[in-house]
C-alpha cells in the first residue's frame, strides 16, 4: 500500500513523504518501541500513539519506511526535521489507534498474522 493510499484510508494527512516511494506490505501498531523493534521489518508501517523522537530512531534502526501517528497528535518540528533528514515518511491519522488500525485492516493492509502464544514468566 502506498503512502497516499494509507492517508486516504485513514482520512489522514501526509506530513513527510518517505525518501523512496515505498509500497508498504504490512503494519504493526504499538506504543512500546521495544515491541516494535522485535517485530520490525523493512517495508513495514509503524502505527503508534507516541510522538517522541524515539519513534523516528526506532524506524531508522529497523528500516521501517513510514510512521503513522494516531488520534490527531501532531509531532514536534524537531521530529519532522529528523524524519525529513533520515527520509522516513510521516503520516497523521485523526482516528484513535484502534480505529486507525481497523480502517487500514479493512483497506487490506495485513499485519504479522497469528503468533505463537508464549508464557512470559
Amino acid at each position: 500500500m502506498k503512502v497516499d493510499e494509507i492517508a486516504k484510508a485513514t482520512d489522514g494527512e501526509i506530513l513527510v513523504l518517505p525518501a523512496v516511494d515505498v509500497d508498504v506490505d504490512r503494519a504493526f501498531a504499538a506504543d512500546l518501541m521495544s515491541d516494535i523493534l522485535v517485530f520490525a521489518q523493512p517495508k513495514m508501517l509503524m502505527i503508534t500513539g507516541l510522538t517522541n523522537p524515539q519513534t523516528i530512531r526506532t524506524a531508522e534502526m529497523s528500516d521501517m519506511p513510514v510512521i503513522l501517528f494516531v488520534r490527531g497528535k501532531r509531532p514536534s518540528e524537531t521530529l519532522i526535521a529528523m524524519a525529513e533528514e533520515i527520509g522516513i515518511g510521516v503520516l497523521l491519522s485523526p482516528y484513535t489507534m484502534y480505529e486507525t488500525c481497523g480502517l487500514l485492516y479493512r483497506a487490506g493492509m495485513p499485519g504479522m498474522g497469528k503468533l505463537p502464544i508464549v508464557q512470559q514468566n
Partner: protein
Amino acid sequence: MSQEFSLFARMGKDLQASVLQELTFELKVSRVMTPGPYTLSSQHLMDDVKNVMRERRFSGIPVVDAGELVGIVSVQDLMRAFEEQALDAPIKRFMTSKEHLIIAMADEPVFEALKRLEQTRVGRLLVLNAEHQLVGMLTKGDIMVGLLRALEDAFSREEEQRRQQHPRRFFEALVSDETSLLMRYRIHANDFASGGKASAQIKQALLQMGAAPQLARRVAIATYEAEINLIIHTTDGGYLVAEIRPERITVVAHDTGPGIPNVELARRAGYSTASPLAREMGFGAGMGLVNIDRCTDELNIWTAVGVGTRVEMVFNVTEDGAKAGK
C-alpha cells in the same frame, strides 16, 4: 562509470587549461614519440625512398649512416628527384642535411617540442638522446595520443585512489595481522533526546562499509536497546564501543553502576525496573535484553551491584546478514 569519473565530462572544463597543460610540461618527449624509426642510409637511392614511402605511407625518412643521424629525406625531396629524373641518385644528393634538421631531445618536455612544431611548421621532429643518436620521431599525432594516454593513466590513478578511500575498500587498504575499526560513544544518563544517535551512526558506518542491510539492522536494533538501557538505568551514563572487524562486529555497552542485582530476572521478558519517564518514551517494557539476545550471535553480561555493568554483543558477519547458524 559515473559522470564524475568520465574522462570526457571533465576534459572540457578546467582540465583543458590546467591538467592538460601541466601534462605537456610533465611529459617527456621520450614517453610520447614513436621509438625506433625506420631509417635509410645516405647511400640508398631515391628510388628506394619512393618505394618505402609508398609501401609504408611515410612522408619523411631519417637518414642514418653507421648509427649516426646525417639527415632526413622528405616527400618534397622525392618530388625534386622526380623533376630531375634522378631516382637512381643516392639519397645524399637530395636529403636535408643534419645542420638543417629540426630536432627534439628525448628528455625535453612535450611542451617545448610542441612549440617547435608550431613555430617551424614541420610535420615531424627527429628525437635524439643525450648522445645525439636518433631514438625516435615525433609528430603532433604522437603528442595527442601520448597526452590522451597520460590523461587516462592520471584518471585511473585518481579513480584507484578514490576507490581505496571508499569505505568498502577500507579494510583491504589497511594491512595488519588483525585490523579493526573502533567507534566509541559517550552516552549520558537520562539523555532521551540523543537516544539512538550512536546506534544510527554505527548503522550508517556498517552500511557504508558494505554490510548486508539485515546485519546492519540486527546490530542497530541491539545497540539501540543497549544505548537506551544506558540512558534509562545508569547513574552516570556510560560508553558504547563498537569494534568492527571484517568477520565480526562486537558492540560493548559499559557503565559504572548501579549494576544489575539479578541478571536472570533482567533477561526475562516483561521484567522491568524502568522509570515512568522511560516508559513515556516507549521503553521500559522489559524487552530490552530479550530483544538484544534475539539480534546477537553471542551475548555476554558481566555485572556487579555498585560497580557497573558490561554488556558485550557479538555479531558474526555473514553474506546475507542473517544470524550465523540460522
